[in-house]
C-alpha cells in the first residue's frame, strides 16, 4: 500500500501530538504500574525502523474495507471522527503508533448491513529491524453485523521485528461484531498491542484472541460496555515455548446498567516460558444489574515455567454479580496415571490432557469456521511446544 504524500491538517496535528508524547512518556520499566512482571530492559526500541506492512485484506461484501492510507482521503470525515476515539494516547507505545503509523485497515459496516463473509486481514511481521505501526479501525453502525479475522504472523522464526498495533472496535447500537485475532509472529520479535472495544446499547461483541508468538511485549484487550443491555464475550488462549514471555492485560469496564461480560483465558506454558495475565473488572457508579465473569487458568508443563495471574475487581455499583477465578496447576498426575493405565504412552496421555484443558476454551465458541480454525491452530501450536 502506498504512502500518503500529504496528509490532512487534523492528522498532521495528531502525529505532532503523538510525537511530543513520545518525547515525554518514557518507556516503562519494572517499577511502572502494570509492567512489574514484564521486562523491557532488552528492548532497544530506537533500533527498529518505522516501517509499513505488506498487509493483505479480503472479503467484506456490503461493507467498506479500505486501507487506512487510502481512507485518509476517501473517508476523511469518518476517519477524523473515529480514529483514536477509543484508544487514548497515554502510553509510550500508543504515542509511537500515533506519531508514526504507516498503514492499517478501516472496516465500516453501514446501518443495518449484515456482512456474511468474514473480512480477513493478514499482517506480516516479516522484516528484521522493522517496527510496524499498525492500526485497525472497525466501525459497525446501528444493527450492523460483521466478522473480522485478523492474523499477525511471521514467515519464519528468525525475524527480529517489532509490531506496535492499535486496534479500535466500535460496536454501534444493537450491532454484532465477531472479532478474531490470532498472533503467531516470530519468537524473536516484540509485540505491543493496544486493543479497545466499545459496545453500545444492546450490542454484542464476541472477541477471540490467540497468542502464540513473540518473545516479549504486552497485549492489551479492553472492553467497555458503554450502552445498556450490551454484552461482551472475550476468549483468549496462549501457549508459550522456550524463551518466550507472554503478557496479557484485559479490562472489562461496565459503564452502563444491564450489561454482561464473560472473559475466559487459558494458557499452556512449556519449559522456559513465562506468562503474566492481568485482568480487571471495573463497574462504574450507576452500572446496576451488571453481571461480570472473569477466569484465568494456566497449565504449567515444566518446573521451568512460570505464571503470574493478577485478577482484579473495582466495583462502584451495588446491584452486581461479579466473579473471578484464577488457577495455576500442573498436569494432574492421577489423570495421567489413569490414561497410561489404559494403554496410552505418557506423551500421548499428556497431550490428551492438555487438549482437554484447552477444549473448554474452544467450547465457548459457536460451532462453525471460527471454532474449527481456533481448534486447529491450538492443536498445531501444541505440537510445536510439546
Amino acid at each position, binding site marked *: 500500500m502506498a504512502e500518503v504524500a500529504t496528509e490532512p491538517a487534523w492528522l498532521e496535528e495528531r502525529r505532532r501530538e503523538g510525537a511530543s508524547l513520545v518525547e515525554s512518556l518514557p518507556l516503562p520499566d519494572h517499577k511502572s504500574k502494570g509492567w512489574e512482571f514484564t521486562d523491557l530492559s532488552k528492548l532497544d526500541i530506537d533500533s527498529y525502523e518505522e516501517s509499513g506492512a505488506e498487509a493483505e485484506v479480503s472479503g467484506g461484501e456490503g461493507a467498506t474495507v479500505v486501507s487506512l492510507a487510502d481512507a485518509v482521503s476517501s473517508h476523511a470525515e469518518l476517519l477524523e471522527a473515529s480514529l483514536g476515539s477509543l484508544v487514548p494516547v497515554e502510553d509510550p507505545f500508543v504515542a509511537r503508533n500515533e506519531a508514526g503509523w504507516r498503514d492499517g485497515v478501516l472496516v465500516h459496516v453501514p446501518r443495518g448491513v449484515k456482512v456474511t463473509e468474514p473480512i480477513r486481514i493478514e499482517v506480516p511481521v516479516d522484516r528484521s529491524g522493522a517496527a510496524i505501526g499498525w492500526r485497525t479501525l472497525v466501525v459497525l453502525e446501528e444493527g450492523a453485523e460483521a466478522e473480522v479475522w485478523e492474523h499477525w504472523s511471521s514467515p519464519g522464526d528468525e525475524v527480529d521485528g517489532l509490531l506496535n498495533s492499535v486496534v479500535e472496535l466500535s460496536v454501534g447500537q444493537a450491532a454484532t461484531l465477531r472479532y478474531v485475532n490470532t498472533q503467531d509472529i516470530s519468537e524473536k520479535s516484540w509485540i505491543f498491542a493496544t486493543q479497545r472495544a466499545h459496545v453500545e446499547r444492546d450490542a454484542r461483541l464476541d472477541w477471540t484472541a490467540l497468542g502464540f508468538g513473540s518473545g516479549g511485549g504486552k497485549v492489551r484487550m479492553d472492553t467497555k460496555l458503554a450502552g445498556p443491555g450490551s454484552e461482551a464475550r472475550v476468549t483468549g488462549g496462549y501457549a508459550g515455548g522456550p524463551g518466550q514471555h507472554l503478557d496479557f492485560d484485559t479490562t472489562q469496564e461496565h459503564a452502563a446498567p444491564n450489561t454482561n461480560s464473560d472473559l475466559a483465558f487459558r494458557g499452556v506454558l512449556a519449559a522456559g516460558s513465562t506468562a503474566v495475565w492481568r485482568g480487571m473488572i471495573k463497574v462504574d457508579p450507576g452500572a*446496576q444489574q451488571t453481571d461480570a465473569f472473569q477466569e484465568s487458568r494456566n497449565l*504449567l508443563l515444566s518446573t521451568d515455567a512460570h505464571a503470574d495471574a*493478577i*485478577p482484579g475487581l473495582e466495583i462502584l455499583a451495588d446491584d452486581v454479580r*461479579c*466473579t473471578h477465578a484464577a*488457577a495455576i496447576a*500442573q498436569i494432574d498426575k492421577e489423570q495421567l496415571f489413569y490414561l497410561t493405565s489404559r494403554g496410552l504412552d505418557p506423551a500421548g496421555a499428556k497431550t490428551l490432557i492438555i487438549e482437554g484443558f484447552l477444549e473448554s476454551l474452544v467450547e465457548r465458541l459457536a460451532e462453525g469456521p471460527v471454532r474449527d480454525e481456533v481448534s486447529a491452530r491450538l492443536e498445531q501450536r501444541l505440537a510445536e511446544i510439546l
Partner: protein
Amino acid sequence: MATPEAVAEKRELAGINSDYKEKFGFNDSELGYAYKAPKGLSREIVETISDYKDEPQWMREFRLKALEHFYERPTPKWGGNLDQIDWDDIHYFVRASEKNSRDWSEVPDDIKNTFDRLGIPEAERKFLSGVGAQYESEVVYHQVNEKLEAQGVIFTDMDTALREHEDLVREHWATIIPANDNKLAALNSAVWSGGSFVYVPAGVKVEMPLQAYFRINTENMGQFERTLIITEEGADVHYIEGCTAPVYSSDSLHSAVVEIVAKKSSRVRYTTVQNWSQNVFNLVTKRAVAHEKATMEWVDCNLGSKLTMKYPSIYLMGPEAHGEILSIAFAGEGQHQDAGGKIIHAAPKTSSSIFSKSISKDGGRSTYRGLLEIADGATESRSKVVCDALLLDEDSRSDTYPTIRIDENDADVGHEATVSKIGDEQLFYLQSRGLDEEEASKMIVNGFIEPVTKELPMEYAVELNRLIELQMEGSIG
C-alpha cells in the same frame, strides 16, 4: 419495627462502636502522664525514649538506624491516601504511669475506670489466662496466671521482656520484619513502645487464649506497639488483640509491628478484632514465619479506623508447614479498609488458604489486596484463596487485587472472588418467613461472615455480630 428492647440494645451497642463520645465521653484529661514527648519526630525524641526506658545500647542503635530508614523512604502511594498524615503533628511517646502493675488493685483508679467501661475485668473473670492491657504507650496492667509461669511460658509487655529476657528478645528481634522493611515498620522500629512478648517453650500448649487490649488515648498520639511471639517445637498458643479507642477530633496514627516465629510442629493463632475510632490511621505490619510442620493462622477482623492498611503475612519456610488467613472487613461511611494477606510458600509440601469477607456500606470502601507466591523449590504445594464481598448500597465500593505468582509446575493454586449485593431471593425467602427486611438483611450479613466469626472465641464473635448489626441499622430504606 423498633421494640423498646431493640431501642435499649441499640443504645447500648452505640457505645461499642462509633458513638464513643456518648458512651466513653472522656479524654481522661485529669490523668497525670508520667512523661509525654513533644509532638514530632527527631533524633532527640528517639534518644529520649531510649534513655527513658534505660535500654541496652544495641536497641538504641537499632532505633536510630530505623529512624534513618524512615526518613529515607517515601510515603507509600498505593493503597489508601497517606498524604493526610502530618508526621510532625503526632506524639511519638507517652508514658502513662511509672511502673507496671501485676495486681488489679495497683492499677490507678482513673485507668481502672476506663477498663471497667471496656469490660476487661468481666472478661477476665470468665476464663482468661492472662490480660495485658496497653493504656497509652505502655503496658500498665498485666497478669499471667501462675500455671502458665510454671510451664515456663513468658507473657509480658515488650519493655519488660527487653529488661528481663534480653537474650531471647535480641535473638529474634526484627528478624522477621527488618527495620527497613517499609516506611511504617521503620517508624515503629524507631519509636516503638509497649506491645506483648510471648514465649512458649517446647511442647507446651497454652489452653486459654492470651489477650491484650489496646487503646489510644491521647489526642494525636501514635501508638507504636511491638509484639513478638515465639513458639518452640510442638508448642501451641492463641493470642488475641482487640482494639477500641475514644473519639477525637484530629487524626491519630496506629502503627504496630507484629513478628511471629513458629518453630517446628508448633501452632500459633493470632486473632485481631480491630475497632479503632474512625479517625485513626491503622497501618500495621504483621508477619510470621512457619517452620517445618508448623501452623500459623491469622484471624483478622477490621471494623474501625479511618484507613486500615494491613496484610498479615506468612512465610512457609519448612516442609509441610501450613498457613491460614481469615479476614473480615467492614467499611462504613468515610472508611477505607485496605486489608488482605500474603502467603509465600518457600518449602515443599506446604499448604495454605486465605478466606476474605468484606462488606461495604454508606460510601465505604473495602479492598482485598493479597499475594500468593509459590517460590522456586516449593514443590507439591497447595493453596486456595477465596474473597467474597458484599455491597450494601450504590455509593459503596469494593476492590479485589489478588496477585498470584507461581514458580513451580506441580503447584495447585486456586483463586475465586465474588462481589454481589444481598440476594433478592434470600431476602424474599426470609421475609416470607415473617422477618422484616432489616432483620432479614442482618441475618444474611451475619451468615455471610459466619465462616470467620465461628473461628473467634465466643465473646468476640458475639461482639462482632452486634457491631455489624449496629452498622446495619437503618441501612434498609
